[in-house]
């Protein structure tokens, strides 16, 4: 029984798994064919994902290419997929970064290469699945599946402290997701369905009314899982470890896509399902986001380790995204979506570049570099481009997102009363300045000046393969900076939808939900025992 017969999304999720299966058949020492095959699979997947763009036209709201098939009879779990303006570009970002990171690992992965590329493709399955699932259970399933390949990528192909980092990554993520499972099950018990749209409908028509305290607890159960993933200060401590220890490809995917699963989750689940709690929590969340912005930037500034610097810059940039989401304004949320994509590309590019330096010198210490612009002019040029995009230079991709977020924050009201948004925006904008400081300063220390370490004098410049990767990334950076309308016009409808979904019956009468006409379900045990 197929409700809507379009299997593009299914193909999109499971095609990399097929590719991984095919890879497993190849001989383990046949490195050439393994990576070629992996690249072909990932590239084809990217091309397939481009088909999503015409499916989500300008100004369209609601889910497209929906597929809804019953999967498990009890409880009724559906294989329910769909794509909208929020998820479409995140999927494409994933399918874009995967072939790029495969290409970046072309010569740097020799140990157990077959397993490496299998893991990369399996990771893609999980991540694409997360973005396309519209059933809470299915979403949770992909959310968990994604964990294992990432942990393996860090744990097997990482650097010295890889095992520590892998375990930390798993434990942090599991801690969050298991609470989310409790929340999901609670919602199921209240509504009898795992279907996101149906739960949404029940909440919006008032047939399910969550008491304030219950809503807050549910919000926290979901929010914590997402906040760990983002990661929001002070839950960010797994991130620097994971990033520094992960291989380049792992870092690119981790920073580029995995962190976005957290912010995506906030927009897709936290806000529409628990708007009142979200509004209540917003001032606090915003404060944590701003602390994250400033703290991440300050720590990045004093980092002697180049990769850790980029990792902490992610904490800072993702703080902007969270701030934008919790401004609840159309502009802020648009900016958040945009910043997710921009950060994926520019930080991805930075991690690629840092990885290329590491391939040459096997160190991330800034001290070990200096004056690199002389031996490697091309690489330093691309690096500068990525740095400028990351610090938000106008015309490049980083600017649009940050600007929209700050604008949205400025005009919004945190909490239910008061027009205090400008204070938040003011604090957050220090992050923009700080990011220019640490990025330019580190760039100066690595590339400018005299060559201080003799070994660096003879380093080879970017190879043709590397130039191809970096040029592709740069083109995307530039295109996103100039042609932002292509993206924002498609995300606009999605943001509007989220804002509409946040409406509740009786919303304007105050913070309390309407009483009387809906079943009130509370967390307390019935008093019979």
């Amino acid at each position, binding site marked *: 029984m197929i409700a809507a017969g379009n299997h593009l999304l299914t193909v999109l999720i499971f095609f990399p798994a097929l590719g991984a299966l095919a890879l497993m058949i190849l001989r383990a020492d046949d490195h050439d064919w393994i990576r070629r095959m992996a690249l072909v699979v990932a590239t084809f997947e990217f091309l397939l994902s481009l088909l999503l763009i015409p499916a989500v036209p300008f100004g369209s709201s609601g889910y497209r290419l929906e597929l809804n098939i019953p999967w498990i009879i009890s409880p009724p779990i559906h294989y329910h997929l769909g794509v909208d303006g929020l998820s479409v570009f995140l999927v494409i970002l994933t399918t874009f970064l995967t072939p790029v990171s495969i290409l970046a690992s072309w010569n740097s992965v020799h140990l157990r290469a077959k397993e490496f590329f299998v893991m990369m493709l399996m990771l893609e399955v999980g991540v694409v699945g997360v973005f396309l699932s519209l059933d809470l259970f299915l979403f949770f399933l992909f959310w968990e599946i994604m964990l294992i390949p990432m942990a393996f990528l860090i744990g097997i192909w990482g650097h010295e402290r890889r095992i520590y980092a892998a375990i930390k990554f798993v*434990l942090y993520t599991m801690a969050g997701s298991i609470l989310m499972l*409790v929340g999901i099950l609670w919602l199921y018990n209240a509504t009898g369905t795992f279907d996101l749209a149906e739960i949404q409908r029940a909440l919006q028509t008032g047939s399910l009314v969550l008491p304030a305290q219950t809503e807050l607890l549910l919000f926290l159960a979901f929010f914590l899982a997402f906040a760990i993933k983002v990661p929001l200060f002070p839950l960010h401590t797994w991130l620097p470890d994971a990033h520094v220890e992960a291989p380049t490809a792992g870092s690119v995917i981790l920073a580029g896509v995995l962190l976005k699963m957290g912010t995506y989750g906030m927009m897709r689940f936290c806000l529409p399902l628990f708007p009142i709690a979200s509004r209540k929590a917003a001032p606090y969340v915003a404060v944590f986001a701003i602390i994250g912005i400033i703290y991440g930037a300050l720590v990045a500034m004093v980092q002697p380790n180049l990769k850790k610097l980029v990792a902490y810059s992610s904490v800072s940039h993702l703080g902007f995204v969270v701030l934008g989401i919790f401004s609840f304004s159309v502009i802020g949320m648009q900016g958040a979506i945009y910043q997710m994509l921009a950060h994926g590309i520019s930080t991805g590019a930075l991690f690629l570049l840092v990885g290329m330096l590491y391939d040459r010198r096997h160190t991330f210490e800034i001290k070990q570099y200096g004056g690199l612009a002389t031996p490697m002019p091309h690489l330093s040029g691309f690096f500068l481009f990525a740095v400028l995009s990351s610090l938000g230079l106008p015309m490049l991709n980083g600017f649009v997102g940050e600007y929209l977020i700050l604008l949205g924050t400025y005009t919004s009201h945190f909490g239910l009363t008061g027009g205090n948004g400008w204070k938040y925006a003011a604090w957050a904008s220090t992050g923009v300045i700080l990011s220019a400081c640490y990025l330019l300063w580190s760039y100066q220390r690595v590339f400018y000046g005299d060559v201080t370490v003799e070994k660096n004098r003879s380093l080879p410049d970017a190879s043709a393969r590397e130039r191809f990767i970096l040029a592709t990334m740069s083109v995307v950076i530039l295109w996103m900076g100039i042609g932002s309308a292509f993206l924002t016009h498609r995300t606009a409808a999605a943001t509007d939808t989220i804002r509409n979904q946040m409406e509740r019956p009786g919303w304007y009468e105050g913070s309390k939900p309407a009483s009387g006409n809906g079943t009130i379900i509370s967390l307390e045990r019935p008093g019979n025992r």
Partner: protein
Amino acid sequence: MNFSTPSTADFYRVMPELIWCIFGVLLMLLQSLTKNRAFLSTMAFLGAALGTASTLLSARFPGPGFFGLIQTDTFSLFFHVLVGCVALLVILAADSYLSRANLESAEFFALILFATAGMGVLAGAQELLTAFIGLEMSSIASYVLAGYRRDTLKSSESALKYFLLGSFATAFFLYGIALVYGSTGTTLLDQMGAADSNNGLLKLGLALILIGLGFKVAVAPFQVWTPDVYEGAPTPVTALFAAGPKAGAFALLLRIFATVPAATHYWFWAFWILAALTMFAGNLGALVQTNVKRLLAYSSIAHAGYILVAFAAVTTMTSSENSPSLGGVPAYTAILFYLLSYALVKVGAFTIVSQLGGKDEKYVTLDDYAGLSQRHPFAAATLSLFLLSLLGLPVTAGFFGKFYVFKAAINSNLIWLAVLMAVNSIIGAYYYFRVIVAMYMRDSSEESAAAAPLAFPLTVNIVLAVSALGTLYFGLFPNQILRLLLEKTLIGGLK
């Protein structure tokens, strides 16, 4: 009650037990005629298979048998198939272990069949003394099996500990039966429905029964024997212990619930506390283990705790109704599904441990497992799958097992118990993942790298393939089994 000659149908109802016992006796007799390992193993396998298959026969005669002593319903059939399949897999896996360790095989298999028959009786019993006989059958065979490596100190220690503590627990159980009989005047479970639930003697009796069974399923604070016994017993036997007797004892507990309302009234808080204690005892204990066999033993304790969470959920539900209104899987189904997924995984995991252990079970520490993915990719992959299932990650049966228990707990508004379970799952993630880390992310020690390449015999590979595929199958398509377990007439005596 009419105690005349039992009808033919009654014998069909206990056909699995009969076949298991007959083959057990047959094996003991054949032992004096032949020492041919292949022949004896084949006989044992045949016996286990025939016995399990004969549940199809007993399925055609549902209802109470032997004047109400036993009950043939979907519930008991499920457990018969479960323990039968466990026995089948253990026999397959033990074959190569026994020849490697140069142990007699006929007695071993006979004992496994007797133990299985005991578990079968336990699952079908609807009368307390019958249950006691089943419990004793499986226990006594287990004691002997635990000490089967006579020449090893650890094995003897294991047997002695199991025997002493086990008989102590059995005494509790028996005394409990006496008190229940004293207060209700019957040992038939279905006649206790009308019993006055405020009767102090009945309460005490039920408490003692709970303690006796709690020991068998390794519930904290009666779990202390588990790691030592599991570690000392020959590993195929450990696989049996982890899967079989636990299922049998849980089956009896459930049946007591389903038929004696008095039990459900008083056991709620007991289960709540026992579940919390057991989860923590198992998981915290497992955290510091470096011996994989002991680690899995502690993990069994933890899993008993998760199952008890579902029991606590059952106690909040049976008094009113089975909560079909919530459209969900009732807690009964959660427990049955959990036991199924758990049995599959534990048999598989212990089989791998047994194979990797070498001749004297020497290689059982985490260090010996380092770099296993390079030396034996199949073993590392399947063991990882089993560990992920124990951890409760998606697309494994263990995930749905845990999911249904979670759901049952939340259905019954046991939010805090669910949260405790969540906390425990995270602790569990750490130590399960540690084994995976050793296998995949560390390099082999010099000793194990230099050792001869590992090769698993065909029988072991079959066991691993069956349990791995089963774990995946129930993790992806649980519908078939759920349809069975969701029947309204799951337990015959259920009102």
